[in-house]
């Protein structure tokens, strides 16, 4: 397994897209968060907005970079036919999937940590000027939002790896992952019944997963923060399981 990890790590670091995509993810996370934090106001002297969530609000955009990275790590091999070489070098297919998932999610978590810490720093500097307390990771809910945001990005990476392994074609895989993340919430909006709206909202991987960032009015969320991240984790696990089963069952390409 160590050798499979080493091989997948070498692959990921020697392909052109990895560095730029992760850099873009970090920049987008920090820039979006800082820009939105800078627009915070305290209407009627009440500073009641969720400043922490707003500080980390670059994730819905930067997650697309992470999804792309994950899909390319798998779909790129199907696109070029290199998957045959990979499965010749590492014939245990479960091991190939596990190594890919671990390396992509691990690297994403590192980049995610950088992005979240930089955003937190930005929040610390910007928020006092807008009438809000400086963002502090010593605060329980704030720490949960920060750590949860890193995990969120890693889980999106796993979702991308699993879906790409099942779908194979890079373009179709991207469409599937982004559709699941961005279109599912629209589905929830189209339902007028409040009960169903709540259920669909809680099942949408992006909405449910980002509940972990909420620090104000937590009780009013359709799903509690960690449970929401759990929903995303379930989607990722299901995608990996489907990808793994198909990888075992089908011919290599």
């Amino acid at each position, binding site marked *: 397994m160590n*050798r*499979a990890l*080493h*091989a*997948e*790590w*070498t*692959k990921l670091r*020697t*392909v*052109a*897209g990895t560095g730029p995509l992760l850099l873009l993810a970090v920049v987008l996370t920090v820039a979006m968060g800082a820009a939105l934090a800078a627009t915070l106001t305290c209407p009627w002297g009440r500073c009641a907005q969720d400043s922490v969530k707003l500080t980390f609000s670059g994730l819905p955009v930067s997650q697309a970079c992470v999804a792309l990275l994950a899909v390319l790590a798998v779909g*790129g*091999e199907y696109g*070029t*036919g*290199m998957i*045959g*070489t990979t*499965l*010749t*070098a*590492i*014939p*245990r297919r479960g091991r190939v999937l596990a190594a890919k998932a671990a390396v992509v999610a691990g690297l994403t978590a590192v980049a995610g940590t950088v992005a979240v810490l930089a955003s937190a720093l930005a929040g610390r500097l910007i928020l006092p000027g807008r009438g809000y307390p400086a963002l502090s990771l010593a605060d329980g809910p704030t720490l949960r939002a920060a750590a949860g945001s890193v995990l969120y990005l890693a889980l999106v990476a796993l979702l991308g790896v699993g879906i790409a392994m099942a779908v194979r074609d890079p373009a179709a895989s991207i469409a599937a992952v982004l559709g699941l993340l961005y279109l599912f919430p629209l589905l929830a909006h189209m339902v007028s019944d409040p009960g169903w709206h709540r259920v669909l909202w809680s099942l949408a991987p992006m909405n449910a997963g980002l509940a972990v960032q909420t620090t104000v009015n937590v009780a009013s969320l359709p799903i509690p923060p960690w449970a929401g991240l759990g929903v995303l984790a379930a989607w990722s696990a299901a995608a990996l399981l489907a990808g793994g089963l198909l990888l075992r069952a089908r*011919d*290599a*390409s």
Partner: protein
Amino acid sequence: MEATIEVTGLRKRFGRTVALDGMTFRVPPGRVTGFVGPNGAGKSTTMRVILGLDAPDEGRALVGGVPYRSLEEPLTRVGALLDAGALQPSRTGRDHLLWLAHSQGLGAARVDEVIGLVGLGGTARRRAGGYSLGMRQRLGIAAALLGDPPVLMLDEPFNGLDPDGIVWIRGLLRSLAAEGRAVLVSSHLMSELEGTAGQLVVAGRGRVVADMGVAELIEAASHDRVTIRTTARSRAMETLAGAGATVAVTGGDTVTASGPPAERVVELLTGGGVPFSEVTAHRATLEEAYMELTRDAVEFRADGAGR
């Protein structure tokens, strides 16, 4: 590990197309075995099954007595070149070899060794997307040699190589076999294997049409025909026919006799006082021998009369 490949009764369908129909052969160590046959004969599919990439519907393929998928560090047991174009274009050739090496617990030193071995040199540090087909083949061969494996399997390694490259790879294949390795090389052009392969497995329509030594195959296709060049055509024909040969006119001053070997033909003509300027035992080329074997096995003939 014994250096062999054994393929037994492989069957596989892709939808309604029968790709493999009882493919059975053995690749022994110490010689180059040519795996030839027209396109669509099942050569590549067989190789993919041997490597555990495709699962057969029936039958089994063993490498050194065990299924490929049960091997740990498989590249140190079997080196394979299947599709030289299967490269990530933005990765350099050296980095491609490097991840393969890491997957087997090998280091960068071995990578640089095989880069030198296949003559890729400084090209290895350029992005693979810019490689010519010949450079990709060399990179693919470097990947196959990476783990110094006792079994090698190369699918159409001559494709895209310039004449120098073809001469080089023939020498390489011969020396690898001389070191006691089992070497299986597929090709749809028989002439590429002439002088390299010692054994031939001829495939057609998903099964083995012939499995024999190259010398034996050429012998069988030559039919003991002797060509005689003479100014006394009719006397030569009379003399040879009288000795039981089947004689045919093939040109203004040439006749062909089948039956007696060339030595006997010379003896007969000399004995009968027939003048001649040339007696040649006709020797089939590998190409001719192969054409004769696969005549019935090709799926689509050149005239378009598909069966």
